[in-house]
C-alpha cells in the first residue's frame, strides 16, 4: 500500500461517500423527484479516488457524463451535488447542469462534458492555463474508453504533447461504450500503445486496488508536473452498474458483507478490495473502517432527505406534475 493510515482511511471514506451517494440515487430514483439521466460509477470508484487523492487542491480536473465520482473525489460538496440532482438552485450548477454537468470552483472541478470526447480537448486548454500560470498545477482530463474511439481525442493528445503541456489524460477503460465492447470498436485495444505512438508517456493498470492506482498516478503526475509533458494513464475496471439509470449490479453497502468479501482476492468491488488491503496491513484500523462503513451512508442519506424535502417545498408553488412511473431498467 505504501500509504499512511490517514491516507488509507481517506481513500476508503471517499470511495464509500461516492458509493453511498450513488446508492442513494438508486433508492430515491423511483420517487421521481430526481428527474434526469444518471450515469453511475459503481465499480469504478478507485479510478477517481486513486488519481485525485494524489492531486493537489490547485490542480484542475474535467470529466464526462459519468462525473459523480470525479466531482466528489476532487472535493466537490456532497449536499450541493445532491441538490443539483434534484434540480434545486442551491445545486452545484444552480440547477442548470444536472448529473452530467457537475461543477465546483472551490474544488477546481471545472465541469463535465456529455459529448465524447469533449472534455479531452478542454483539458488541454486547462493545461495551457496551468503552464501560463507557472505555479506548478496540472490539469487532469478524465475520459472513458469510448472517447478514445473519437478522432479529436488523439488531436488533443498530440496538441498537448507538441505544446508541452502539463496534462494527465486519465482514460477509464470499463471495456464498454454504452454496451458496445471495446473489441468491437477498436482494432488496437491497447490505449497505451496508441498514446506512446503520439509521443506521450503512458501507463496502464487495473483499477480495483485504489492503492495501486495511487502509485501509478503518483509516478505519472510527478512526471507531468516536473517535465510539463502530458501523459496518459489507462485504468481498467468493471462498470458494476448500467450505462445509464439507477441500476447497480452488486449488493448495497453493508459492513458485514464487505468485511466478508474483503478477504476475496478476486473481488471486483474496489471498496471490498480497499478494506481487505487495510485490514491485512493495518489491522488496528478495523474499528475506524467499520465506523466509515456505518456512518457515511447515514450522513449521505440525511442529505437526500433534506434535498427531497426542499424539492417538495419548492413544488408547492411550482406545481410540477408527477412524471409517469419509472420504466424497468435493464443492466
Amino acid at each position: 500500500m505504501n500509504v499512511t493510515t490517514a491516507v488509507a482511511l481517506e481513500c476508503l471514506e471517499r470511495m464509500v461517500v461516492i458509493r453511498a451517494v450513488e446508492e442513494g440515487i438508486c433508492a430515491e430514483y423511483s420517487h421521481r423527484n430526481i428527474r434526469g439521466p444518471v450515469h453511475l460509477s459503481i465499480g469504478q470508484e478507485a479510478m477517481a479516488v486513486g488519481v485525485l487523492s494524489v492531486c493537489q487542491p490547485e490542480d484542475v480536473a474535467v470529466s464526462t457524463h459519468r462525473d459523480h465520482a470525479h466531482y466528489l473525489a476532487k472535493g466537490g460538496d456532497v449536499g450541493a451535488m445532491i441538490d443539483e440532482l434534484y434540480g434545486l438552485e442551491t445545486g452545484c450548477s444552480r440547477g442548470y447542469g444536472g448529473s452530467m454537468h457537475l461543477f465546483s470552483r472551490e474544488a477546481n472541478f471545472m465541469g463535465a462534458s456529455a459529448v465524447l470526447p469533449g472534455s479531452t480537448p478542454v483539458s488541454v486548454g486547462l493545461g495551457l492555463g496551468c503552464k501560463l500560470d507557472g505555479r506548478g498545477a496540472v490539469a487532469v482530463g478524465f475520459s472513458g474508453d469510448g472517447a478514445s474511439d473519437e478522432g479529436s481525442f488523439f488531436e488533443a493528445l498530440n496538441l498537448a504533447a507538441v505544446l508541452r503541456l502539463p496534462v494527465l489524460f486519465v482514460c477509464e477503460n470499463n471495456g464498454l461504450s454504452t454496451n458496445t465492447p471495446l473489441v468491437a470498436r477498436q482494432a488496437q485495444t491497447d490505449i497505451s500503445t496508441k498514446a506512446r505512438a503520439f509521443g506521450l508517456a503512458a501507463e496502464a493498470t487495473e483499477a480495483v486496488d485504489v492503492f495501486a492506482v495511487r502509485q501509478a498516478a503518483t509516478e505519472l503526475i510527478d512526471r507531468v508536473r516536473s517535465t510539463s509533458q502530458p501523459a496518459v494513464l489507462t485504468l481498467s475496471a468493471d462498470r458494476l452498474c448500467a450505462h445509464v439509470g439507477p441500476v447497480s449490479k452488486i449488493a448495497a453497502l453493508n459492513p458485514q458483507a464487505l468485511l466478508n468479501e474483503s478477504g476475496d482476492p478476486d473481488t471486483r468491488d474496489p471498496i471490498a478490495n480497499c478494506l481487505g488491503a487495510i485490514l491485512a496491513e493495518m489491522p488496528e484500523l478495523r474499528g475506524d473502517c467499520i465506523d466509515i462503513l456505518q456512518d457515511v451512508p447515514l450522513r449521505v442519506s440525511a442529505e437526500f432527505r433534506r434535498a427531497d424535502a426542499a424539492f417538495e417545498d419548492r413544488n408547492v408553488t411550482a406545481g410540477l406534475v408527477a412524471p409517469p412511473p419509472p420504466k424497468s431498467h435493464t443492466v
Partner: protein
Amino acid sequence: MINQATQSFDYAAAAVHALEQEMAHDPRVFLYGEGINDAGAYLNSTDGIAARFGEARCFDVPNCEDALVGLGIGSALMGYRPVFVSLRVDFLMLAMNQIINHAARWPAMTGYQVSVPLTIRALIGRGWGQAAQHSGALYSMFANVPGLEVVLPSSPAEGAGLLLTALRSDKTTIVIEDRGVFGAAEEVPAIVEPIPFGQARVARAGTDVTFFSVSSMTGFALQVADRVSESGISAEVVDLRTARPLDEETIRSSAARTGRVAVFDIGWNRFGLSAEVARVITEASGLQRPLLSVHRRDEHTPSSAFLEVEHYPKIDEVVQQVTTHFS
C-alpha cells in the same frame, strides 16, 4: 470635440493594430493558429505580432481544429483571453463540437458560474477561385446558437473597434473576416475605441428604402445606394455589424420609417439574415397581425425540472396566446 489622431490602414493592418493595442494592455491575451507566423499568412492580419510580443503569445499549432478550440476553451476557463485564428470559416466545421457543445454551452451548464472569453477570427476566402470549401460564409449557423457572439466587420476601422470589443468580451465571439473588406484602406484611430455589439451603424442616411447589410456587403450596398440615387431613390444603408447580438430596435425603427426593406447578406438566403430581418420586422408589423413564433426559449436547455418546464412551449399558454393575439 478634439479630433483624434488617425492612421490610414487596410483591414489587415487595422486588425494587427487593435490586437497589439490590447496585447500591450492585457497580458492574458494571446494568439494561435495554423501557420500563424508565416510571412503573409492570414492576409497579413497577424504580421509582426510574434516579433513584438514573442512566440509564446503568438504561436503556431498543428492542424486539429476541434482540439484547438478546446485549447481556447480550457485556457479561457483558467482566466486567459485566447484568440484562435482560423484561415477559413469552412475549417471551423471541424470544430463544431467544441464551438457549439462546449464553448457556447459551458457557461450555461455550470449555471453561469464561468465564462469562456475566447475569440475566434475566421476568414472568408471570397474571390480568386477559392471554390466551395474556401469561401463559405456559414456564420448564420453560429448566430443560431445562444452563448456565442457573431461579428461581421465591414471596414478597417469597424474591424479594429469590433475586434477590440471581442477581445474584451466574456463570451465566445466569432469574428467573420471577409476577404472583400481587406482591400481598401481608411483612417483608423491611433487609439482604438471598442465598438459595442448589438448597435447597428447608419452608413448612409436615406428615406425611401432601408438596406440592411453585414461585412463586405455593406460596401456593396453603399454602391447600390449611390447608383439608385441617380433614379431618385433615397436608400438608407444600415450596417448591422453583429448578427448576434442583433440590433432589432434599429431594424424595426428604420423599416417602420422607410416601409421598404432589402437585405444584403454575405451568406445563403435560406434560414439566414433575410429570414432574421423578416422575423424582426413581422414580429412588429407587416401582416394583419404580427407574426407569432412558438418555440423553445432562446437558451440552452437547463437540467432542472423547474427550469426545464419553462424552456419548452406550454400548450395552455400557447392556446391563450393565439386566442388573444389573433382575435
